[in-house]
């Protein structure tokens, strides 16, 4: 569980995070959603200590991260896996070396054991046969998946993913979302995912924090979203007309108002129901 209270962060005069608080729960995919530039990446980096928040407290499993010294943070970080928005693969190493690096550094396994683990995680992200390639030779989506593989190779207790499926096709995207959900449940991890992908929200949204211009605008889960009356959230999530219709239909369905296919047709054409 990661709890954070009243996080504030500014760069110069620009206030990026303004009093954000939330609890990220264990065994769930916790989503941070919001428009581009709303401060998701900055919040995530504050949580792991890459940025020092100006104010506020961060608590990992009951222990204050804010009060930890450098050595204690280093130890905690060995249990953290992180996927960066730009993947951040080590470009002087091959894919295999990239993923093996945490194993080399923190375990004393034999090479063949490490290689087995590397191939295992590569298979989990649907990426095989690229072991010897360098990051520069991969597509953006492949880099993302290598980044995920590297983040999960040590079975971290806390997993942070910054837009794991931006730049992926919808199908691979689903596979990645499913993978994140699966390992989160399997290993009872605390997973924090930044996203503005509608599909991911509906697929993994068990605990959602919606940020707007650095402030907490709304919190809830994927079911709450459908019935939410928050206008900013609605226009963010259901940005297209198509999705707006889908939402309306879901609501009507829930109220038992849609009776037959004719009503559906009408709605899709944009007509009002009687």
């Amino acid at each position, binding site marked *: 569980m990661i709890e954070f209270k009243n996080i504030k962060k500014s760069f110069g005069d620009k206030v990026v995070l303004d009093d954000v608080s939330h609890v990220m729960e264990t065994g769930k995919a916790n989503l941070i959603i919001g428009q581009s530039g709303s401060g998701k990446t900055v919040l995530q980096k504050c949580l792991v200590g890459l940025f020092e928040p100006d104010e506020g407290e961060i608590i990992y499993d009951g222990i204050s991260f804010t009060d930890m010294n450098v050595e204690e*943070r*280093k130890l905690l*970080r060995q249990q953290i896996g992180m996927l960066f928005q730009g993947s951040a693969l080590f*470009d002087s190493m091959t894919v295999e070396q990239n993923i093996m*690096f*945490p194993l080399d550094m*923190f375990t004393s396994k034999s090479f063949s054991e490490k290689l087995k683990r590397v191939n295992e995680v590569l298979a989990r992200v649907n990426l095989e046969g690229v072991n010897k390639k360098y990051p520069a030779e991969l597509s953006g989506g492949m880099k993302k998946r290598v980044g995920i593989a590297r983040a999960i190779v040590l079975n971290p207790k806390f997993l942070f993913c910054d837009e794991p499926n931006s730049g992926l096709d919808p199908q691979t995207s689903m596979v990645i979302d499913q993978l994140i959900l699966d390992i989160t449940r399997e290993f009872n991890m605390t997973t924090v995912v930044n996203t503005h992908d509608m599909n991911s929200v509906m697929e993994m949204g068990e605990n959602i924090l919606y940020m707007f211009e650095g402030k907490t605008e709304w919190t809830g889960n994927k079911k709450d979203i459908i019935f939410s009356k928050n206008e900013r959230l609605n226009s963010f999530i259901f940005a297209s007309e198509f999705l707006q219709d889908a939402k309306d239909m879901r609501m009507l369905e829930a109220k038992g108002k849609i009776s037959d296919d004719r009503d559906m047709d009408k709605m899709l054409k944009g007509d009002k129901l009687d």
Partner: protein
Amino acid sequence: MLFFNHFGRYLLMLKGMFTRPENMRMYWKELMHQCVEIGVGSLGIVIIISFFMGAVSAVQTSYQLVSPLIPLTTIAQIVRDTVILEFAPTVVCIVLAGVVGSKIASELGNMRVSEQIDAFEIMGINTKGYLIMPKIAACLITIPMLVVLSMVLGILGGRLAGVATGILSTATYDMGLTLNFVPYNVFFALVKAYTFAFIISTIPSYYGYYVKGGALEIGRSSTKSVVVSCVMILFADYILAALLLNK
């Protein structure tokens, strides 16, 4: 004010390198890798410039010594002393500041900008220790070696040029080399080599590690680190000469 700001952060960076390595074997591997990159990587350029520096100083010295009263062995002595005292340590290190310094600064700068340093940091690795310290250690190990090599090659270059241009015979040259030889000069050159190696590695590391921005800033910081290193080398050169050579 800005200077103190930089200097303070520079000292903190150096202090930050000293934590217990997460995995000694990996640090050792990285050190060896850097020794190859830095030491072997700049071997070619050091060989070439040393050889020609020696050759040119032999020819120019003989050109300047017009009096027939001065024995030819003096040429060998002058070549020997200038190469040992100044050319091998200072000129070679200024060249290395360009070769090695820009490499260190742009490598670290690129890692900073593409968040690779953050990625190491998140794994629980002390990046100052893992990325910077091996580079500094590798410079401290290999650069004095290169300087010694440069002394030998410089003197050899002078010898070959002297003979090729018919200025003096090898026998005269070799005799001149042993006349009034002061071993302290070699010690002094090595003190310089270690000092300069420290400058060449730490200043570019500082500029690279703390880069902010994008590709443009990487280029800028790498240029800046080379300029600052060169100025610092010349400054340190003067200070060391004043301290250690003043009779």
